[in-house]
């Protein structure tokens, strides 16, 4: 290494140290939290099934919960009411409407994630994981996406093949 290279290396080292010091000069007021304490909020379900909780459900149980907690808004057969349709619908969505779970949603895991975080509308987070699995099974079965007696759990849910999954054209990152 020549003296010139050494000088550059020394400058780079100084810069690195300088940057390190600057980065350390934020207030650092975040309080460390462990996984146990944050678990109550850790509700994102990834499309590969990551973070799906223990438990399972079948359509027959889901039908009972649906009638009690969902039908008022989504219709007794899931046909929609003052909330969106959940079961059936047109074969293909268009700008006239008709995006349905069966013809549009790319991932079945989204059902679990959304129902658990946001439903029922007036009492979000009131359903047990077991109830959510059962509701997901009911909706998927009624849409003929799984068999009527299939069990939905952390292993089976990510494997449900949603018909429209490969139909999406990702705009990102080309237009970031």
């Amino acid at each position: 290494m020549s003296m010139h290279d050494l000088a550059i290396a020394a400058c780079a080292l100084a810069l690195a140290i300088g940057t390190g010091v600057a980065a350390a000069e934020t207030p650092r007021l975040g309080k460390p939290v462990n996984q146990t304490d944050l678990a109550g909020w850790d509700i994102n379900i990834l499309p590969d099934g990551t973070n799906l909780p223990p438990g399972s459900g079948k359509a027959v149980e889901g039908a009972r919960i649906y009638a009690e907690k969902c039908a008022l808004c989504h219709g007794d057969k899931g046909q929609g009411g003052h909330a969106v349709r959940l079961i059936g619908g047109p074969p293909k969505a268009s700008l006239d409407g008709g995006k349905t779970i069966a013809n549009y949603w790319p991932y079945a895991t989204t059902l679990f994630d959304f129902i658990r975080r946001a439903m029922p509308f007036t009492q979000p987070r009131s359903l047990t994981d077991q109830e959510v699995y059962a509701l997901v099974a009911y909706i998927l079965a009624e849409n003929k996406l799984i068999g009527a007696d299939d069990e939905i759990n952390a292993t089976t849910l990510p494997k449900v093949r949603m018909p429209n999954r490969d139909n999406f054209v990702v705009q990102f990152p080309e237009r970031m």
Partner: protein
Amino acid sequence: MSKSGQSARSIDAVADNGLLHRRALLGRGVMLAGAMGAGATGALTSAAAEPLAEAPWSLAPGEVTPPYGRPSRFEKAVIRTVDNPNNEPKGSRARTPHHLLKGTITPNGLHFTIMHGGIPDIDPAQHKLLIHGMVKQPLVFDVDALSRYRMVTRIGFLECGGNSAPLFSSEPIQADVQALHGLASCAEWAGVPLATLLDEAGVDPAAKWIIAEGADAPHLSRSVPLAKVMDDALVAMYQNGERIQPGQGYPMRLYLPGYEGNMNVKFLRRIQVTDQPTMTYFDSKIYTDPLPNGKDTQFDFVQEVKSFITSPSPGLQLREPGLYEISGVAYSGTGRIAKVLVSADGGKSFAEAALDEPRLPKAFTRFAMAWRWDGGPAILQSRAWDEAGNAQPTREQFVAKRGQTSRPASVLGFPGHHFNAITSWAVKPDGEVRHVYA
């Protein structure tokens, strides 16, 4: 080229049908042109109906000065339109009255908002922001802690991905600019760069996304590319100088300059760092659109270059022929506005509008064009370009790419998202302004 435009073409004309050089709107130009437009009648005699006298409010002391100021009682019409006034169990939208505003900053009470489960009443003393996932150390921040951080201030627009959705309709919907384009606003945001907080938590080099989540009832969540977050995302706590209002996400929201509104998660309580998007309900079902070729869009994040004329516009009747200012806003999610062209003959001829300073990146830019309306038919259009060279498409170009409905749509509906094509206002001989496709 219209006959009326041709006959009225003056030395200041810059395009057909009455578009004038900007000097017509400045200083002496206005007086001369105005006098000409009005027919130069009675310049030396008084046209006032009665002598000027003292008004009642000039003859006695006025009202008490309130601790928090409010607009004049005569401005009661300058409000947002709300589509769920009784807070029924569904979404709520409040739209900005662009036709009644000038400048580029939307007042806080008039900033658009969309709620998917009502506005939560959050106690800031109990609100927490959690950062976890692919980080060295999960951290929790409270409002007091974040208030100690260096805050960045920037002016920027916020636009719902579904703004202007009525223009997907196969027929032009007769509605005002508030109903058609009211889900976009512009404000000054101040907050802590999210990158600072992520750096403290120590982001795993393999991470590519964050999932942002709100503390509202739907626990609204969106996937955001980590690169965008590290570039310019803010945990915004102030809007136009004061704490952001509950309808905007009090006590803190994500602000992603130029990205579709829904991703700017309000009531921000959690950031999970991940290597993949969550494909949330809003990621995968709502903010995605069927295309004419049978495919569907996904992760269409940027609000592309757009402009619309706010005055004249539907509901603002032109009372008489004469000199008017055509005024509107232009903005782009990719940067600054470079130029805006205005047409008064439905796009046959265009002239370059004056742009008010400052022209800030990813913010509203106000444009203006002088126009002498001769009382004949006119179709007003604006078309913007951003500094990256992106041109606002014509409606024809846009529809070829993104489609339209097969039957007239509802003004409150959202057939599609990211509509950014040219809007056309037709001025009828009686001065009424209507929405048309041209």
